[in-house]
C-alpha cells in the first residue's frame, strides 16, 4: 500500500507545473463562485444593517404614497391614547461631498420608545454617557475621569453636555449627526459646517456630534431633527413614515386593530421588515445572473480538472500497470486516484477560498455600484463571508475534482495490467468516446430545447438550458476536432509532411487535445453569446433612446434614487422656466414609487404632448385606443413590469392612492430598458388628483425653431439664478448618460467573463503541456531526423493555433445559440424586457482573436521547451 501512495506523491511532486495548473484552475472556479457570493451577500447585508439601524425594535410601520403621511395623523394618533409606541420619520437622500447619505429625520424625544435598543438609540445612549463622563472628567481633572470616557465609542461631542446637545439638536440651524467613520471619510470634525446637496439645492449643515463604534449600518446615515429634515427636503407637513412598536401577543394585536381603525384611506400599516425584503427582492434577478456567471467559471474549471487529473492518471498508466501486476487490487488503485483527487480538490478549494475572498473584496465595489445605480443606496464597509455559500462552493470544487478523476480512475483500474501500459488503447477509446459524445451532445441539445419549451417563466430552468447548451458544445468539440484534424492532415499532407504530422497528431492524441479544445470552445461560445447579447442590448437601448428621448432639453431635479419625493423642481423655479418665450412645448413628469397590492411600483406620472405619445414604443395595444384610455385614467405598463406582475392589456391593478385603494386598467404595454423592475406611465392629472401631489420631478422642453439647446440651457440657468441647481441635459446627453450607465452595468459581466476565459486558457496550457510531455520522445526523434528547434517550436504553435481555430469554429453556432438563449430566455425571464437580436462580424472577429491568442500563448511555453529539450536524453528515456 505504501508503495502505492509513494508513487502517487512522487508523481505529483515530479510534475509541479501540472499540479499547479490543476490547482489554479480549480481555485479560480471555486474562487469566482465565492467572490460573487461575497459581493452579493455583502451588499445585501450592508443594506439590511442600515435598515436595522434605522428600524431598531420597531415592529410595524405606517406608510402612505409618495407624498408621505400628513403629520397631523401622527399628532392625532399620539393624542388618541392607542397603546402603541409611535415615532415619526422623515427620510431622503442627500449628497455630501461625493457621498450619498440617507438623511433620517427623527424626534429623539420619542424615538427610543419605538426603536428601543437599536443601534441608533444605543449610540445615542452611549453618547449621552460619554458626554456625561466627559463632563465629569472635566471636573475631575487629574483624577483620571477621562480614562473612562475613552472606553466608549459613542458620539464625541466636544465636551458638550446633555442639555446643550439637545438644545443644539433642536435649535441649531443645520444640526446633524453622522457616524464617526463617515465624518472621518468626509474630513469633518464636530462643529464643522458643511453643505448638503438635496435635489439640486445646496443646504448648510453643521456636524454637532458623531455616532461612534463599528456598526457599519450607520455609515450611510445622516441624522437630524425631524424639523430640520422637513426643511431640508421641503417635506413640510409630511412624514415619510411612522414607525410603530407594539408588544407581542394578543395585547399587541388588539392595539394594532385599534390603530388600523384610525387610519385614513391611503395609509397602510405593515410589518417593519417588509420594506427591507421588498428592496432586496428587487435585486434577486441581478444576483441570480451574477451567480450563473460564476457557475460558468466553475463549469469551465471542470474541464480543466478533468484534463489535469485524467492526464495525471494516464501518465502513470505504466506505473499503475506495474503496481497492478505486483498485486495492487483495482479497488486500491481506484482509491489511490480518488484520494489523490480529493486532496487536490481540498487544496484547490482552499486556494479558491483565499482567491475568492480576495476577488470578492474587489467585486464588492462593482456590485454595490451597480446596486446604487439601479436599486438603492448602499455603502458596503464590511465584507460578509457567507458560510453556507462558501461551503457550497468548496463542496462543488471537491465534488468536481472527484468527478473529474472518477472517469479516468475507473477506466485505468478496470483495464488489464498489460493494457494499462499502452497509450494506443486510450486513444482508440478516446476516438470512440468522441463519437459517443456526438450522440450525447445531440441529446443535450434536445434536452436544452425541451427545457426552454416546457418552462415558461422559470429563470432557473433558463440557466439549466443554457448550461446544457454549453455542454453540448463541449461534447461535440472532440469529434469536430478529430474530423477537422484528419481532413487537414490529408489536405496539408500534400504540401508538407511536417504539417501532415502536426495535424495528424492532434487527431491521434484526442484524449489530450479533445478536452482542452472543448474547454476553450466552451469559453469562446460563452464569450460570443454574452457579447452578442450585450451588443444586442446596447443596440436596442440605443434605438429605444433615440425613439423616446425627443425633447430638446430635459430638466431634472438631481439626486440619487428613483421616486424620491425630495427630487422635485421648486414651483417658482418651474414657473419661471416655462415662462421663457423660447419654449414651444413641454412635458412634465413626476416619478414616484407607489404601493400596490403586488408590491411597490415605479410610477412615471406624465403630462404629455403629441410628440411624446408617438415616442413611446408600444409593444401591445393599439396606439389610438391606448392614449385615449390613458387620458381617462388608464395606465401603460412597461414590459418588465408586465412580465413580473403577469399583466396584460385589459387587466386591472390595484394601487394605494392617497384616497385609498383604486383599480387601474392596463391600457397598453411599452418597451422599456430603464430599469429591470419596470415602471408604469400614468396621466399626471390623474396622479396628482389621487395622490394629492403636485410636485414635478422633471420637465422636457421642446424649443422653438431657431433656439438650440445650449442657448436654452443658458437662458434657463439665468432664470434659475442659484435658486435651485437642476440637471439640464440635452437629448443627446441623456442618451449618452443612459449608455454610460448601461456600460457600467455590464462591467461585472465582463469581469466574470474574463475570469472564465482565464480558466479556459489555463486549461489549454495544462493540456498542451501534458501532451508535449507525452510525445517528447516522438518529437525528439523528429528533431533527430532533422527537424530544427525552430521547426519543432513552429510545429507546436501550428498545432495549438489549429486547436484554437477549431475551438472557435465549434463555438460559433453554439455562441449564437447561447446568445439567442440569453436574449429570449434569460433576459426575458429575469427582467422581462425584449431585446432585438443584433449580430455584428466584430463579435466573431473578437472571439476568433481571443481563441487564437489564448491558443498561441498556451503553445509558447511547450514550444520553447521542446525546441530546447536535449534530444539524447529524451530518446534515451525509453
Amino acid at each position, binding site marked *: 500500500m505504501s508503495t502505492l501512495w509513494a508513487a502517487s506523491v512522487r508523481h505529483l511532486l515530479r510534475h509541479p507545473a501540472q499540479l499547479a495548473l490543476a490547482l489554479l484552475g480549480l481555485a479560480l472556479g471555486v474562487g469566482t463562485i465565492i467572490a460573487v457570493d461575497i459581493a452579493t451577500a455583502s451588499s445585501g447585508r450592508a443594506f439590511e444593517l442600515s435598515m436595522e439601524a434605522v428600524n431598531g425594535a420597531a415592529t410595524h410601520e405606517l406608510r402612505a404614497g409618495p407624498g408621505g403621511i400628513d403629520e397631523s395623523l401622527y399628532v392625532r394618533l399620539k393624542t388618541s391614547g392607542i397603546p402603541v409606541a409611535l415615532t415619526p420619520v422623515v427620510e431622503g437622500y442627500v449628497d455630501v461631498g461625493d457621498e450619498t447619505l440617507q438623511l433620517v429625520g427623527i424626534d429623539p424625544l420619542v424615538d427610543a420608545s419605538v426603536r428601543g435598543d437599536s443601534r441608533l438609540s444605543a449610540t445615542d445612549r452611549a453618547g449621552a454617557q460619554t458626554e*456625561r463622563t466627559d463632563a465629569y472628567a472635566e471636573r475631575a481633572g487629574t483624577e483620571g475621569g477621562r480614562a473612562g470616557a475613552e472606553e466608549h465609542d459613542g458620539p464625541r461631542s466636544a465636551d458638550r453636555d446633555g*442639555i446643550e446637545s439637545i438644545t443644539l439638536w433642536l435649535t441649531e440651524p443645520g444640526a446633524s449627526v453622522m457616524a464617526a467613520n463617515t465624518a472621518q471619510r468626509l474630513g469633518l470634525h464636530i462643529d464643522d459646517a458643511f453643505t448638503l446637496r438635496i435635489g439640486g439645492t445646496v443646504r448648510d449643515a453643521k456636524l454637532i456630534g458623531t455616532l461612534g463604534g463599528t456598526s457599519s449600518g450607520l455609515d450611510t446615515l445622516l441624522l437630524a431633527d425631524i424639523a430640520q429634515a422637513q426643511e431640508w427636503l421641503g417635506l413640510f407637513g409630511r412624514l415619510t413614515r411612522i414607525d410603530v412598536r407594539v408588544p407581542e401577543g394578543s395585547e399587541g394585536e388588539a392595539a394594532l386593530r385599534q390603530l388600523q381603525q384610525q387610519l385614513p384611506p391611503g395609509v397602510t400599516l405593515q410589518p417593519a421588515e417588509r420594506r427591507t425584503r421588498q428592496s432586496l427582492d428587487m435585486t434577486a434577478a441581478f444576483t441570480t445572473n451574477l451567480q450563473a456567471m460564476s457557475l460558468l467559471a466553475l463549469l469551465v474549471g471542470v474541464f480543466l480538472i478533468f484534463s489535469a487529473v485524467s492526464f495525471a492518471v494516464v501518465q502513470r498508466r505504466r506505473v499503475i500497470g506495474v503496481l497492478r501486476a505486483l498485486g495492487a487490487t483495482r479497488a486500491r488503485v481506484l482509491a489511490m486516484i480518488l484520494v489523490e483527487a480529493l486532496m487536490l480538490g481540498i487544496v484547490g478549494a482552499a486556494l479558491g477560498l483565499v482567491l475568492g475572498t480576495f476577488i470578492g473584496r474587489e467585486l464588492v465595489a462593482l456590485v454595490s455600484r451597480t446596486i446604487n445605480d439601479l436599486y438603492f443606496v448602499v455603502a458596503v464597509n464590511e465584507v460578509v463571508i457567507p458560510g453556507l455559500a462558501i461551503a457550497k462552493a468548496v463542496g462543488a470544487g471537491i465534488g468536481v475534482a472527484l468527478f473529474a478523476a472518477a472517469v479516468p480512475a475507473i477506466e485505468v483500474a478496470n483495464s488489464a495490467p498489460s493494457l494499462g501500459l499502452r497509450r494506443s488503447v486510450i486513444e482508440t477509446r478516446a476516438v470512440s468516446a468522441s463519437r459517443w459524445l456526438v450522440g450525447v451532445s445531440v441529446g443535450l441539445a434536445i434536452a436544452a430545447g425541451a427545457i426552454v419549451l416546457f418552462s415558461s417563466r422559470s429563470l432557473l430552468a433558463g440557466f439549466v438550458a443554457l448550461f446544457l447548451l454549453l455542454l453540448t458544445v463541449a461534447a461535440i468539440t472532440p469529434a469536430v476536432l478529430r474530423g477537422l484534424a484528419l481532413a487537414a492532415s490529408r489536405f496539408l499532407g500534400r504540401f508538407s509532411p511536417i504539417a501532415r504530422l502536426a495535424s495528424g497528431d492532434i487527431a491521434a492524441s484526442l484524449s489530450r487535445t479533445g478536452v482542452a479544445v472543448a474547454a476553450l470552445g466552451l469559453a469562446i461560445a460563452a464569450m460570443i453569446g454574452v457579447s452578442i447579447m450585450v451588443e444586442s442590448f446596447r443596440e436596442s437601448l440605443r434605438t429605444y433612446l433615440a425613439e423616446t428621448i425627443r425633447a430638446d432639453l430635459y430638466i431634472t431635479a438631481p439626486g440619487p434614487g428613483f421616486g424620491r419625493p425630495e427630487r422635485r423642481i421648486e414651483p417658482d423655479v418651474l414657473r419661471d422656466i416655462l415662462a421663457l418665450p423660447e419654449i414651444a412645448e413641454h412635458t412634465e413628469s413626476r416619478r414616484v414609487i407607489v404601493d400596490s397590492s403586488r408590491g411597490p411600483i415605479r410610477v412615471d406620472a406624465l403630462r404629455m404632448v403629441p410628440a411624446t405619445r408617438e415616442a413611446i414604443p408600444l409593444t401591445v395595444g393599439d396606439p389610438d385606443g391606448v392614449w385615449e384610455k390613458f387620458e381617462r385614467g388608464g395606465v401603460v405598463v412597461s414590459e418588465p413590469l408586465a412580465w413580473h406582475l403577469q399583466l396584460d392589456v385589459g387587466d386591472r391593478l390595484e394601487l394605494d392612492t392617497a384616497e385609498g385603494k383604486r383599480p387601474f386598467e392596463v391600457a397598453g404595454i411599452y418597451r422599456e430598458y430603464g430599469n429591470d423592475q419596470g415602471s408604469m406611465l400614468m396621466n399626471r392629472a390623474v396622479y396628482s388628483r389621487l395622490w394629492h401631489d403636485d410636485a414635478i420631478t422633471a420637465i422636457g422642453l421642446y424649443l422653438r425653431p431657431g433656439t438650440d439647446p445650449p442657448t436654452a440651457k443658458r437662458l434657463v440657468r439665468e432664470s434659475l439664478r442659484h435658486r435651485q441647481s437642476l440637471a439640464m441635459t440635452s437629448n443627446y446627453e441623456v442618451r449618452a448618460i443612459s449608455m454610460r450607465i448601461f456600460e457600467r452595468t455590464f462591467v461585472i459581466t465582463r469581469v466574470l467573463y474574463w475570469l472564465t476565459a482565464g480558466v479556459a486558457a489555463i486549461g489549454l496550457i495544462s493540456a498542451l503541456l501534458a501532451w508535449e510531455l507525452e510525445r517528447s520522445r516522438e518529437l525528439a526523434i523528429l528533431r533527430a531526423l532533422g527537424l530544427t528547434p525552430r521547426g519543432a517550436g513552429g510545429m507546436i504553435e501550428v498545432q495549438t493555433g489549429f486547436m484554437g481555430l477549431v475551438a472557435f469554429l465549434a463555438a460559433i453556432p453554439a455562441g449564437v445559440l447561447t446568445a439567442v438563449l440569453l436574449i429570449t430566455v434569460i433576459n426575458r425571464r429575469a427582467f422581462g424586457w425584449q431585446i432585438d437580436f443584433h449580430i455584428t462580424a466584430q463579435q466573431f472577429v473578437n472571439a476568433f482573436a481571443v481563441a487564437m491568442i489564448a491558443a498561441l500563448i498556451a503553445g509558447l511555453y511547450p514550444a520553447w521547451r521542446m525546441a530546447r529539450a536535449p534530444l539524447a536524453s529524451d530518446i534515451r528515456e525509453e
Partner: protein
Amino acid sequence: MRGSGGRKRGSELRKRVSALLAMIVLASLAACNGSSDTARLGTSSPQNAASDTSVTSGEPPASEAAADRAAQPARAEHADGASRSARRRRSDGAAQSSTAEVDTNRLAALRASTLPGGFELVTAPRAFEFPRDHGPHPTFRHEWWYITGHLDTPSGEPFGFELTFFRFALKPPNPAPAETGVEDGMPSAWRARQIYMAHFAVSDIDRKNFVVAERFARDALGLAGAHAEPFRVSLDDWSLGASADGKLWRLVAADKGYALDLEINPDSPFTLNGDAGFSRKSDAEGAASYYYSIPRMSAKGTLTRDGRTFDVQGTLWLDREWGSGALGADQQGWDWFALQLDDGSALMFYALRKRSGQRDAHSAGTWLSPDGKALALANDDVQVDVTAHWTSPHGSRYPARWQLRVPKLDLDVNIQPRLANQELNTSTRYWEGASLVKGTRAGQQIEGKAYVELVGY
C-alpha cells in the same frame, strides 16, 4: 415604570430615559459649570420646586444617583467617576461659597444667568393673575404643573396618583422666525424651543401596586404644550385643562393598565407660597421661583384598571412653580410634604437638605387654615424627625416615616407612606408617595392624607 409594565418595556423605557435624563441632568451641570463648578446638580428633578426640609444624612449626592442612572451599561466606572467628581465638587462648592456670590440656587434645573440668550430671572415678587398664570411662562427656563391626589371608589378602595407636566425651555422664545436650516425658508412645524416631560403614577393601595410612566414631547403641533386661556397643559393623550365652560377642569391620563378621567373643581382656596408667591431657594440671584398651590381641589370621575372602570372621588393638590434657577452647590435635595387634614386645613413644607446633612435655612412652607387663610411657615417653625427608613430596589435609602411638629400651630403628626415602594424610576429617580397622617392639633385627634416627595437620595 419598571415595577409595573412588562419588564421589556420597562427596561426599554428606562434606557430611553437614561439618555434623556443624562441630557437633563447635564443641563444643570452645564448651568452650574458655566458659572463655576459649584454645580450641584439638583436637577434631579426639575420638578418640584417645593422642597423641604428634613435633613438627612450623608447619602450620596443626587448627582451621583442621577449619573448612575444615566449610565446604564457602564455603570460601574461611571458611578465611580461620579463619586470622585462629586467629592471634588463638594470641596469646590465649599471654596466657592466662601467666595460667595456665585451661583447656587436651588431648583431643579438650570441657572438662567449662565444660559445663552438669557432667560428671565425670578428676583422679586410679582402680581399673580388667573387664569393667566395657570398657563405657561416661556421666558423662564422651567416650569411645572404638579397634581397629586387621593381617590376612593364607592366601596372604599383607595388609590393615590400623581400627574405632572414639566416644561423645559431650551432657548428663550424667539420673536423672530425660528431657525431653520434653509435660508429664507419657512420653518417646519416641528421646530420647537421647549420640551415637555410628564410623569403619571398610580398607587394602587389595596393591591400594593405602584405604576409609573414617563413621556417626552416637544412643544409643537399640539404634541405637548400649555395655554392659559382656556387653561390646558398636555402631552400626548395626557392632559389637564379647563372644560368647555371654564369652571371645572378635566384631567385625563392612561398608561400601564390604569386610566384616570377626573372632573376637578379648582375653585378652592389657593396659597401663594413664600413671599406672596416669590419663593427663594437660596441667596443667589435668581435662585428662586414663583410658586403657588391649590391644596384642596375636589375631584370626581373614573379610574380604570385593566379594563374595569370604577367611579372615584377625592381631593387633589396642585403645585405650580416656574423659574430659571438651579439648586445651590451645597444643596443636596429636598423633602416635600403636602398634608390635607380632615379639619379642612392643609400644610405644605419643603425641607431643603444640604450636603452636610443639615437642613438649609431657606426651607419654608405654608399653612392653609380651614377657613382659607394662609400662613407662611419659616424654617424654624417646623420640626421634622425621620423615624424609619426604606431602601429601594435601586439602592436608594429614603426616609419612610416622619414625625412633623409645628409648635406655632400646636400640630404634631405622624406621616406614614401607604405603600413603601412609591419610587419613580424615571429619568430622574425620586420617591413620591401617598401617605397617611395621624396626630393631634390643639390637643384634638386629627387625621389626614398627604403626598410626600423625596428628591436627592
